[in-house]
């Protein structure tokens, strides 16, 4: 059984804080991912697993796997074992629709999930936690529902296949079999346990207390009787950012007691903010992030003005010492989004040894991001309300494993 540590509260900045509602590094430094893996009790995603994925899917593993963006997991090896034996799985990911403004950091789990869907040919459920945002961000019900639909459009624009994807919003879908599972899960988690895992206190309203089962039960196929009728043993794989781990530790703890398989997880690190302050990109600071609605000009400006550079102060010094690749944001971003491994290595070498200047790196990054954002924008423009309705309709997906 996994150990659940109570996460420290924000006032204590001498420890790093990682939970679904707050991410900050220790003493204003970087997030220590090794410590996190230790603390949470999950596994590192190593080379051998990545090779296995390559073999099983007969295609190059996604750039996020190659570059260690998705770096931790729980039971991913078991999922691969079963897949090899012919037992498929389904994917589950989600978004809390708190704002209309989506930035690149938000897209990362979706880009990766899309790759998993294509590579393994498996179905996907996407949960929009409009109820969570209504409660935590104090939005009106209507506003959170509206945001959920708007975000659904950006999600669809990432390229999901409608014949294999079910998108649902909590306000619309909770009920029936889904709710029955929620109650089953809720019965297994005491108030004290919930307070320990999520840091709730006597001041928090009971809505928050009762939310975790909502995010837990999509891991169980019986929550979706229209998709997986009679297939109660179907395994679930959850790609998510590592700050969501607490929800699923709780879920994995409860699953065996309900006679369900534990969901497997594959977890990513945080996408750094442009200015590289500790923590992650924040939707509330427009200059910390590149938005999917930014124009080419905006992207260029933001990269040039705000992207934290590891280059040296003067050209001479730079040519002598080279750039500090550890802190350089443009290189970090390129490692997320530049597909070509060879080119990235080349840039790292030349820049790190002082022969390439920050301006060139930033220019290349601007190109890569602009292309990505343009493509997204184009796809987003093609998403109509009818398409959202289709993705969100409670309907069977007969070809979901093909």
């Amino acid at each position, binding site marked *: 059984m996994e150990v659940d540590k109570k996460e420290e509260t924000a006032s204590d900045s001498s420890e790093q804080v990682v939970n679904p509602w707050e991410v900050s590094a220790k003493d204003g430094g970087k997030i220590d991912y090794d410590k996190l893996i230790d603390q949470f009790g999950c596994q590192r995603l190593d080379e051998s697993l990545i090779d296995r994925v390559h073999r099983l899917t007969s295609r190059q593993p996604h750039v996020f796997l190659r570059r260690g963006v998705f770096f931790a997991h729980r039971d991913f090896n078991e999922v691969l074992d079963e897949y090899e034996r012919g037992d498929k799985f389904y994917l589950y990911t989600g978004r809390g629709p708190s704002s209309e403004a989506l930035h690149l950091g938000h897209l990362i789990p979706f880009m990766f999930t899309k790759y998993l869907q294509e590579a393994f040919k498996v179905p996907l459920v996407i949960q929009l936690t409009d109820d969570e945002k209504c409660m935590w961000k104090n939005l009106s019900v209507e506003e959170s529902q509206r945001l959920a639909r708007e975000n659904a459009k950006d999600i669809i624009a990432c390229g999901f296949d409608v*014949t294999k994807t079910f998108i649902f919003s909590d306000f619309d879908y909770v009920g029936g079999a889904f709710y029955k599972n929620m109650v089953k899960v809720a019965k297994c988690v005491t108030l004290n346990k919930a307070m320990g895992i999520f840091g709730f206190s006597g001041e928090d309203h009971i809505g928050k207390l009762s939310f975790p089962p909502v995010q837990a039960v999509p891991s169980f196929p019986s929550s979706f009787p229209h998709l997986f009728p009679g297939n109660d043993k179907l395994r679930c794989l959850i790609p998510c950012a590592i700050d969501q781990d607490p929800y699923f530790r709780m879920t994995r703890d409860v699953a065996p007691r309900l006679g369900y398989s534990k969901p497997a997880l594959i977890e990513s690190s945080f996408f750094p903010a442009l200015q590289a302050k500790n923590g992650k990109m924040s939707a509330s600071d427009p200059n910390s992030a590149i938005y999917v609605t930014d124009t080419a000009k905006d992207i260029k400006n933001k990269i040039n003005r705000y992207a934290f550079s590891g280059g040296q102060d003067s050209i001479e010094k730079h040519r002598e010492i080279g750039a500090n690749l550890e802190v350089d944001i443009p290189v970090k971003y390129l490692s997320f989004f530049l597909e070509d491994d060879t080119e990235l290595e080349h840039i790292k070498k030349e820049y790190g040894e002082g022969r390439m200047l920050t301006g060139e790196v930033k220019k290349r990054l601007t190109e890569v991001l602009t292309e990505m954002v343009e493509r997204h924008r184009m796809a987003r423009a*093609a998403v109509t309300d009818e398409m959202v309705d*289709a993705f969100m*309709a409670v309907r069977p997906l007969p070809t979901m494993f093909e």
Partner: protein
Amino acid sequence: MGFTKDHLLARLQELQIDYSKYEHPPVLTVEEQAKYVSSSEGTLSKNLFLKDKKNRYYIVSAMVDTKVDMKVLSQRLGLGKGGIRMAPEEALTELLQVSLGCVTPFAVINESARDVSLLLDQKFMNQTRCIFHPLSNDVSISLNTSGLDKFLQSIERDPVYVDLEANPVVGKDQPPDLAVYVPSNSVVVPELPNKTASIQTPSKNVSAEKTKPAAASAKPSKPAGNVKSAVENSALLVFKDPEKFVEEILDKTSALLLSEMKVENVEALTETLRKRLAPQFTNLAVMYKNKAYSEGFYAGTHSQPKRPQ
């Protein structure tokens, strides 16, 4: 063509509305206007031209000192927190038929502005005279609110005065108090043909305290889904029309071929083509498939599924 200032002034005279006129060089801000029209003549106004996500437009006319909080206003109108923003320049020209720096309650005299909601600062009512532009920013007129009311009634509008600084609770049991002033009709403002449509960027720079509407943002705002410019419409056909779909694929392939011609080895070239184009084309194909499915689904369900307002 819209009403000119002379038309308007003539109309005011016909209605026997008492006003004083001040001519001055064109002014774009209240500060500038204040240089030429002193406060003894009346109280200056700031005028905001706003738009919500459903293409409904509003003129908010307030005393310069009145704090207009856009978030609160948006909530009071029942549009949620971020539901309202400055309207773009083309809406100014198309709907109000005035130029930049010239938003004024009098703009509603134009037919094109019939669906624009006009909200006036309650504090105007206590002032002897208030100052507005009569459709042109090289003139200012001061008049009493009773004169303004008479003008509005003459064009069959009810004057609406609102306490703009109030911040009432809006919730389940306290409906938004200004929701009744939301226009029942939305207006589609066609985008100018030489600008490619872009999704409106979050308006980070504009604050409600700006004195004249910042329609200075030249970026066209994308109306909520319905109207797309001719340019964008044809670009989107690629997801619907088989011929355009194939054309796009051949175009991109040829372009890449031509740009990579320097590679002597044809096999390496085909490898590059595959590598570079496969992800792009897969995305294109998935969206094509999604569109086809959605259209079939819609047809199959026969009726419009319920959507939240």
